[in-house]
C-alpha cells in the first residue's frame, strides 16, 4: 500500500482510502511515543525543514518532534528570524532551501495557496501546515484520528463546529474530512462568520449554538481570532462569549457522551469555559498527542523510495 502523491496540500483532494491509510499508519506510530527511547531509525539521513511564516506552538513543535522521533534531522525557520525580514520573496527562500537538498518542506503561510505554489516549483515533498483561511490538513487528520479512536468510527456521528467558520482553515479541512468519512456536520456562528454558500460543502448551518450542539456526538470549538475584533465582525468578546461559548449551561443539550475538541490555542472564557476545557468530556490534549503520530505517519509515507 502506498500513498501515491508527492505532497499533502489539503484534505479536499484526499480519497477515503488515502485518509484511512494515513489514520491506520498513525495508529501504529502512537506506540513509538510511549517508549522509553522515543526514537526509531526509519528516516535516518532525511532532512525536514519547517518553514513557518505565521506563529505556531503546537503544529511546529509537533512536526519537529515527529521528524526527530523518526530519526530525521529537522530544522525550523520562522519568518521573523529569517531573511524574510530583509525582503526575500517566498520563491527565493524556497529555491535556496531546495538547493540545500532537504527531503520534506513543511510550510505555514498567511496566503492561501502558498504550499501549492511551492509544490509545483520544488522537487521536495511539501506538507501544508496551514495556508491562510484555506486548509490545515494535518489538523483535520489528527482530529479524525482522535474521533476514530474515541468513538470507534466516524461514519454516522453528528459533529458540530462552532465559531468563526469563515476565517478557519481548521473548519474547512475538517468539513472536507468529516463529510468524506460519513459524519453529519453542523456549523454555527454569528452570521458574519458563516461564509456564504458553505451549505454546498455538505453541512447544515445554524446561527445559534444551542441548535447546533443538540444531540451532538462531537463539538469542535474554534478559536475566536481576537485580532479580528477590529474588523466589526462581532461587537465584543464579551457578547461573543455570551451567545457562542460552550459552557456548563448549554453542554447538556449535546449527547451524554459528547466529546469536546478544540484545535488550540484556546481563549478560555471566550469560546469555551475553563471547566468545559478541562472537564471529563474534553479530548483536547488527546488531539495534541495524536498530532505527533499523524505527522510521523505523513513523513513516513511521503519519504523514501526511489522514483
Amino acid at each position: 500500500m502506498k500513498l501515491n502523491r508527492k505532497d499533502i496540500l489539503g484534505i479536499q483532494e484526499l480519497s477515503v482510502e488515502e485518509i484511512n491509510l494515513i489514520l491506520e499508519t498513525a495508529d501504529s506510530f502512537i506506540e513509538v511515543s510511549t517508549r522509553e527511547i522515543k526514537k526509531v531509525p526509519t528516516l535516518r539521513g532525511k532532512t525536514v525543514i519547517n518553514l513557518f511564516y505565521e506563529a505556531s506552538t503546537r503544529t511546529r513543535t509537533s512536526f519537529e518532534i515527529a521528524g526527530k522521533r523518526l530519526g530525521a534531522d529537522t530544522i525550523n525557520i520562522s519568518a521573523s528570524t529569517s531573511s524574510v525580514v530583509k525582503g526575500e520573496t517566498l520563491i527565493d527562500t524556497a529555491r535556496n532551501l531546495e538547493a540545500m537538498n532537504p527531503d520534506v518542506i513543511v510550510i505555514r503561510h498567511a496566503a492561501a495557496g502558498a504550499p501549492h505554489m511551492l509544490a509545483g516549483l520544488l522537487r521536495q515533498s511539501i506538507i501544508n501546515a496551514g495556508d491562510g483561511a484555506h486548509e490545515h490538513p494535518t489538523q483535520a487528520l489528527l482530529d479524525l484520528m482522535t474521533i476514530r479512536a474515541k468513538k470507534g468510527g466516524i461514519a454516522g456521528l453528528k459533529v458540530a463546529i462552532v465559531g468563526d467558520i469563515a476565517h478557519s482553515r481548521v473548519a474547512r479541512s475538517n468539513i472536507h474530512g468529516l463529510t468524506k468519512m460519513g459524519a453529519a456536520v453542523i456549523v454555527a456562528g454569528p452570521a458574519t462568520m458563516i461564509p456564504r454558500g458553505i451549505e454546498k460543502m455538505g453541512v447544515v448551518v445554524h446561527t445559534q449554538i444551542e441548535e447546533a450542539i443538540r444531540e451532538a456526538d462531537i463539538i469542535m470549538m474554534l478559536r475566536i481570532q481576537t485580532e479580528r475584533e477590529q474588523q466589526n465582525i462581532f461587537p465584543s468578546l464579551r457578547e461573543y462569549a455570551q451567545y457562542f461559548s460552550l459552557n456548563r449551561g448549554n453542554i447538556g443539550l449535546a449527547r451524554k457522551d459528547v466529546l469536546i475538541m478544540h484545535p488550540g490555542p484556546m481563549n478560555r472564557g471566550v469560546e469555551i469555559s475553563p471547566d468545559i476545557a478541562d472537564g471529563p468530556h474534553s479530548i483536547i490534549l488527546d488531539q495534541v498527542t495524536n498530532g505527533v503520530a499523524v505527522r510521523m505517519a505523513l513523513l513516513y509515507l511521503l519519504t523514501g523510495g526511489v522514483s
Partner: protein
Amino acid sequence: MEKKKIVMDAEGIDRSLTRIAYEILEKNKGVEKLVLVGIQTGGVFLAERLRRKISEIEGRGIPLGILDITLYRDDLQTSHLKPRLGKTDISFSLNDKKVVLVDDVLFTGRTIRAAMDALIDFGRPRSIQLTVLIDRGHRELPIRADFVGKNLPSSLWEAVSVDLTEKNGRDEVVVVLNG
C-alpha cells in the same frame, strides 16, 4: 507454471512447536526471566502457541510481546512500495530478560537484524534467542537460529509459505516453485 509441495502438515507443525517449547525450557532452565516476542505477523501466532505450550508444561504464564520491524528495515530508502505499518506492543520491560524472538521463516536474516535493533531500543535484555519454524538458508547476515522447527534447504526460485489457522484458515508449510 506453479508447483506446490506441502512440506509440513498441521500435526508436523504442532509436534515441532511442542519440541521447541521443551527445548526453550531446557536451555533456559525454566521460565524465570523468560519472555516471548513474536515478529508480525506469522511470528506472533507461533509465539502465542508456544506460550500456551510453555504455560501448560510449567503451569505458569510468561509475557508475550508483539514486534513490527517495519521502522527498522534496511530497504525503506530503496524500495518504492512503503510496507504497511503494523502494531508493536511490548508492555513489559525487556531489561535483564531472556528474550526469545519468534518468526515463521528464517531466510536472509535481515528481518532478525531489524528485530534485534528494535529490541535493544526497548531495553537491555540479558540475552536474545531466536526461534523459527522454518530455516530455509540463504543467509546474507551472520545470524543463526537457536531453535528450529525444520531445516528446509530451498532454492532462491522457490517461495516458502507458512500458513497458519489464525490467518490462512489452515496449518501447513508449502513450497511453491515458480518457473
